């Protein structure tokens, strides 16, 4: 019974995370989207308030028409009826030249300055834990004027300082560090959205802007799931709750098989 209640709470919080992430998108945005939670948020936005959004997937897909939630970076469903099919190199050239205005990423670990680690926990040569690597995440966060990071929040993934910077956030938090490293000016992580709350960045440091109060989250719970002394905005908000319509669309159209939302990601049964 208690387990069921906890699962229900986790589901509601996950839904809130995806809906809040979708709210970050403005109609007409050109978005470089990673697989998984980011893709759910972008598809939800396309079904609701941002139908004119352009979706860009790193292996060469540019599309504005709706499509089924892809289980992998490349699927026949995300290729077919695309506006353009080109290459990994081409997509990133568009980003590097400043033609993609928003990035949407997941993360292995993140630190207080928005640096993401998708590589190793511990020593690079002899790691305690090995992530699969960054894929194209470094490219997205290097190029896009704004990058939203959608990630489930756990204390051991919200680090004071990550062991490996796969994707640079604001580095050590001092002003101008990205530009000093050579990264394009006015780029970097803009928002972090978790199943507990929403964060922005102030002087390069993550700051809590809003808590998911409607699913029972509190500042104390949020603080308990970060490794550092978290800054909280003076005008802290309660997160805008999902509407019935948004939840319905998420359940029936974006992820009808409950692949991500319901945690039923078991594709091995597809051809059993």
């Amino acid at each position: 019974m208690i387990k069921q209640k906890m699962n229900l709470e986790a589901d509601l919080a996950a839904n809130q995370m995806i809906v809040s992430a979708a709210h970050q998108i403005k109609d007409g945005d050109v978005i470089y989207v990673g697989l998984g939670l980011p893709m759910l948020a972008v598809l939800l936005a396309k079904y609701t308030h941002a139908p004119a959004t352009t979706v860009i997937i790193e292996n060469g897909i540019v599309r504005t028409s709706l499509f089924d939630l892809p289980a992998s970076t490349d699927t026949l469903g995300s290729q077919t009826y695309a506006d353009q099919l080109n290459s990994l190199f081409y997509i990133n050239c568009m980003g590097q030249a400043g033609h993609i205005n928003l990035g949407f990423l997941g993360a292995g670990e993140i630190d207080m300055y928005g640096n993401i680690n998708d590589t190793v926990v511990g020593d690079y040569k002899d790691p305690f834990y090995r992530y699969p690597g960054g894929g194209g995440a470094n490219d997205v966060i290097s190029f896009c004027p704004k990058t939203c990071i959608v990630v489930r929040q756990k204390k051991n993934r919200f680090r004071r300082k990550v062991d490996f910077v796969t994707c640079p956030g604001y580095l050590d938090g001092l002003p101008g560090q990205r530009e000093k490293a050579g990264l394009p000016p006015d780029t970097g992580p803009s928002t972090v959205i978790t199943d507990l709350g929403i964060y922005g960045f102030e002087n390069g440091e993550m700051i809590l802007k809003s808590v998911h109060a409607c699913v029972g989250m509190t500042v104390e719970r949020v603080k308990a799931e970060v490794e550092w002394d978290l800054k909280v905005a003076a005008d802290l908000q309660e997160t805008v709750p999902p509407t019935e319509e948004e939840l319905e669309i998420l359940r029936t159209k974006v992820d009808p098989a409950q692949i991500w939302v319901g945690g039923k990601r078991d594709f091995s049964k597809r051809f059993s």
Partner: protein
Amino acid sequence: MSKVMSMQEAVSRHVRSGDTLFLSGMQHGEPAAAIHEIVRQKIDHLNLVCVLITTYSLLIGEGLCDRIMTAWMMQDIKRSYALQKAKKLGRLPVIEEYSHFSLSTALLAGQMGVPYLPARCLLGSDYLKVNPNLKVVDCPFTGEKLAAVRAIVPDVGIIHVQRADPQGNAQKWGSLGMDVEGINASRTIIVSAEKIVDPDVIRRDPNRTLVPGYRVAAVVEQPWGAHPMHLAGCYGDDQFGFYAEVGPPEKYEFYLQKMVYGVKDWNEYLKVRRELKGAAYFQKLEMDPVPSDPVFTGVEKVQG
């Protein structure tokens, strides 16, 4: 001159121990039949250049890779039998990590014949600390800091495509990942194609040719050559079915004995798979085709 040959011949003639090998397909149409043939021939000490491919886990598990240049792969040895087996064989590959863009940039530099290209990714990241082929340079014109990505010129590139002609003019469509840079950067090129077509078919739609015949060494006709991955206009994938087949140790070993070492070529592999999975298996992977409108080329009418 026809370059058509069997996969067995193409691999034994052109892939050698110690080669740097580009494998095409970024989750779209990887050269799975060629990869199985390389495993069957036990060609070792390979340096792979690839992104998001699936069946290369067989090359890793059989201890055939020294080095993999990539951006994303399962590296948690606790969760990968292929890595566990490679370690047991003393052949755990070194992973040289790039971001996706920087790896495609390295191949483009190879295609261009220049030693490196600049990029604006990687700066401020720790990739620069662990990969000696990535450095920071100053732009000679603006003074800006840029990442310098060293060129990669693979000894051999293998691409699987929808159609090619006997000379090797190879046409692929759908998403292209880093196929164009990777295959054109490669010194020796093997094309495997779902179908070998008359040169006239190629010449009536030449914009689709990713690599021209004069660059190609061998052409292999291989239906279902990218299975278990999908190929646009041809078939869907069973990627997660493959993961399940080679995940647990006993299943991995069964797969290797039955589907790789136990067959002489890919057509036999397809036959065994049909026997194991039932006749409906391949039917389920067939697709509803979406035709495009024809595109016309032509010549001027002769004026009287």
